[in-house]
């Protein structure tokens, strides 16, 4: 059995799965249920200014029969009294001392407010703080949340205030509503944050009710931009995570990965791209806390299969595999192959290639079943046919290197090799 226990900035948890700051972590009853279910830790829903929420609050993007591919919220930070939250945090800590308890913070935009809030939270015995520089709605209008995270100068200033007061580890949570999270991330690391977490939610409009013509979520005939999360944002989160993991400054601190983590596989991907642990919200909001069971078991089995004994054995292993386009090997070439024994004759590969790629699939008419084969000379190896094929391993990509040696674009140009061969 692999050891899946996690140590993030000295904060220990039995597994690397924390619940992100969100509705599932906003009160004792949820958090205790989460700990009972087996979650390694929680980031308590953001404490700070007093707020008032609206109804409704959530909306989603469905895809085919799959509901909540993407999830969107316009809820604000915790609307419960601060004292009640603090008391419950202390109680949860007492009942589950082996779990990580991080508290998310978003104070009013002045040094004193931050200092006072940090003092109160540290008194609960919490293990760490997460600064919410990411919330994209409601708080930004008051100069908080993403308004801080979008401006490296302001972010640096706030982190400096925090570090003056904090005695426990500080994680700064970054917003994706920027062209790159790196400038703010750098500013925060330079200002002393102990770790970074990303991504927060992405500003979005999930859809419109085609009867009322009002976008959702609906609030008395109006809507606002919400924060988008769930499986749909994972690729964006992984990309932003990679930029943080590759930057010489931001990569110096541990990273907590967030954004559409729903399964152990997602978690492994975040960790391979540099996250020391992951935070989960939408998947728990969709299915409840019970998803933690397979996350732990799946991770454990995968680590055993791969021979990894601890999380550190694989964290960051894929970071260097994402390179610059110019460094890709142009001599690498692969060609699709359709396994005729597995083909179900649906024609999806054919029409995708014919209409949208390189017309590299041959159609031999049959009634009712056409046969499809690859025109090897035409295939550019784009993967589209394999991606649309509904049958597992029916279409495989076979390597046909152009030449054995590595050749990148720079050298390719130097050698004056022919262009436009496809």
């Amino acid at each position, binding site marked *: 059995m692999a050891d899946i226990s996690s140590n993030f900035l000295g904060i220990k948890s039995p597994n690397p799965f924390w619940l992100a700051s969100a509705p599932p972590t906003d009160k004792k009853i949820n958090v205790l249920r989460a700990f009972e279910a087996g979650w390694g830790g929680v980031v308590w829903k953001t404490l700070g200014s007093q707020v008032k929420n609206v109804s409704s609050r959530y909306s989603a993007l469905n895809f085919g*029969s799959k509901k909540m591919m993407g999830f969107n919220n316009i809820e604000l930070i915790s609307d419960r009294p601060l004292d009640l939250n603090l008391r419950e945090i202390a109680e949860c800590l007492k009942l589950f001392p082996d779990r990580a308890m991080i508290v998310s913070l978003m104070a009013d935009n002045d040094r004193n407010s931050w200092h006072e809030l940090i003092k109160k939270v540290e008194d609960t015995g919490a293990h760490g703080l997460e600064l919410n520089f990411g919330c994209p709605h409601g708080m930004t209008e008051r100069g908080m949340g993403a308004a801080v995270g979008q401006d490296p100068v302001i972010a640096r200033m706030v982190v400096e205030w925090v570090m003056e007061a904090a005695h426990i580890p500080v994680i700064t949570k970054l917003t994706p509503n920027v062209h790159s999270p790196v400038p703010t991330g750098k500013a925060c690391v330079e200002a002393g944050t102990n770790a970074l977490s990303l991504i927060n939610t992405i500003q979005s409009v999930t859809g419109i009710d085609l009867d009322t013509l009002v976008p959702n979520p609906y609030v008395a005939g109006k809507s606002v931009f919400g924060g988008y999360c769930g499986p749909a944002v994972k690729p964006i989160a992984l990309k932003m995570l990679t930029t943080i993991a590759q930057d010489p400054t931001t990569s110096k601190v541990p990273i907590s990965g967030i954004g559409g983590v729903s399964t152990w596989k997602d978690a492994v991907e975040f960790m391979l791209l540099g996250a020391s642990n992951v935070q989960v919200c939408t998947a728990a909001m969709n299915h409840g806390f019970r998803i933690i069971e397979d996350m732990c078991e799946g991770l454990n089995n995968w680590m055993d299969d791969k021979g990894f004994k601890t999380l550190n054995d694989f964290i960051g292993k894929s970071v260097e595999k994402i390179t610059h386009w110019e460094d890709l090997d142009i001599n690498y070439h692969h060609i699709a192959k359709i396994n005729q024994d597995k083909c*179900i*004759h*649906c024609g999806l590969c054919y029409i995708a290639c014919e209409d949208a790629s390189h017309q590299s699939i041959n159609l031999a008419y049959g009634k009712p*079943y*056409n046969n499809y084969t690859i025109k090897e000379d035409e295939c550019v190896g784009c993967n589209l046919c394999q991606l649309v094929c509904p049958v597992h391993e029916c279409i495989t990509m076979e390597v046909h290197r152009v030449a054995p040696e590595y050749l990148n674009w720079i050298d390719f140009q130097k050698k004056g090799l022919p262009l436009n061969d496809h």
Partner: protein
Amino acid sequence: MGITSNRLSQEQYAENFSDIHPPFETTDAALVEANRCLFCYDAPCMKSCPTGIDVPKFIKQIATENIKGSAHTIFVSNIMGAGCSKVCPVEKLCEGACVYNFMEEEPIAIAKLQRYSTEKAMVANWQLFKRKESTGKKVAIVGAGPAGLSCAHVLSREGIDVTIYEKETKGGGLMTYGIAAYKVTPQFCEDEVNYILGIGGIEIKYNQELGKNISLADLQKDFDAVYLGMGVGLARQLEIPGEELEGVEDAIKFIYNIRDKGFENVAVGEKVAVIGMGMTAIDAATQAKRLGAKEVTMLYRRTQEEMPCTQHELDIAMLDGCKIVWLASPKEIKGSDGKVNELVCSIMNLDEPDASGRRSPVDTGETFSLAVDMVIKAAGQMPFEDLVNALKIQHSKGKINIKDSATNISGVFAGGDCVNGGKEVVDAVQAGKDGAASIIKYLSLA
């Protein structure tokens, strides 16, 4: 023993004849199924539909909640798409070709989805086609069955005025009169005919039989073209001793009576033999059982390999408790007091395959007999040979010869069962479309 009506209570009839392929209970259920569809390109299901319905498109339209569009996609290829969703042997057509079969997955419930869209269209009476301005052309159609109605609808869309002459009192043809009541109800058949007529420009004159109340010469004189879609009608006789006994009945008439008279008014024996193994034989056997017959035995002179019905249909009969006897050919029907009490059958053997690959049954000389009080003959139907002879229309054993739907008589077209000798409803619908296309060309409108 004996043939009697009114064997069951109304509740039992209602249960026995309830819809065998119930619709989706909820929109969610239809959406889940619609979303399972892979949306194949040049889809095998579409190529296996005689009317070429763009199945992936109409299913995708259910998934996008464009139900009107979905119904239009179905009806543009098959105006009887609603009825076909209930009576088509989809297991050998669209669903049988579904690529999921290769994945050892249940095929998409195409018929059920087709019913979902077309039923909504019929209930809401969405008229999805608009007639073109009248061309002043007039076409007469003989027979308001699937071929005639389909032909009429295409012609009407093109601005041609259509008059249909129908010998029965209701339209729909075999859909109305020749199919088991647990597949389609008389009310549905009537609604479907009315829905088709909703486009306008089509008039049906009932109780008008060709060669009896109307003549081809008059139709040729009064109309710019004539389409013959009168189907087949005469049950093939067994030509064995005892066929005249009381208790020997044609399957078509038996099924017709169930549709026409009400369950309690149709007499059925206690021990029934059904001769044949086609779809009509199945419909007769299962309904005899459902009317309260104690024992129903189906007899076929070949084996399961050669049976004309689908496995799905055979399964219905077997689940209903019908007994199946292969390699049995009726030899003699015996009776007393003029009433059937015994069926003697020859035991057959299959010959080596002939040039066409089909194996012929050969009498072994041995026999067996069954104690029965009713014999239902479902050995196929015969075309109206005398009628077409009298009309001087070229034919092969009564089946009208056509070339691009045209008969040997200029301006007279034909299609459906009267041409092919008896196929599925969906084949007749396609024949009607083909006929309409030829007529439109003939009238120089295309």
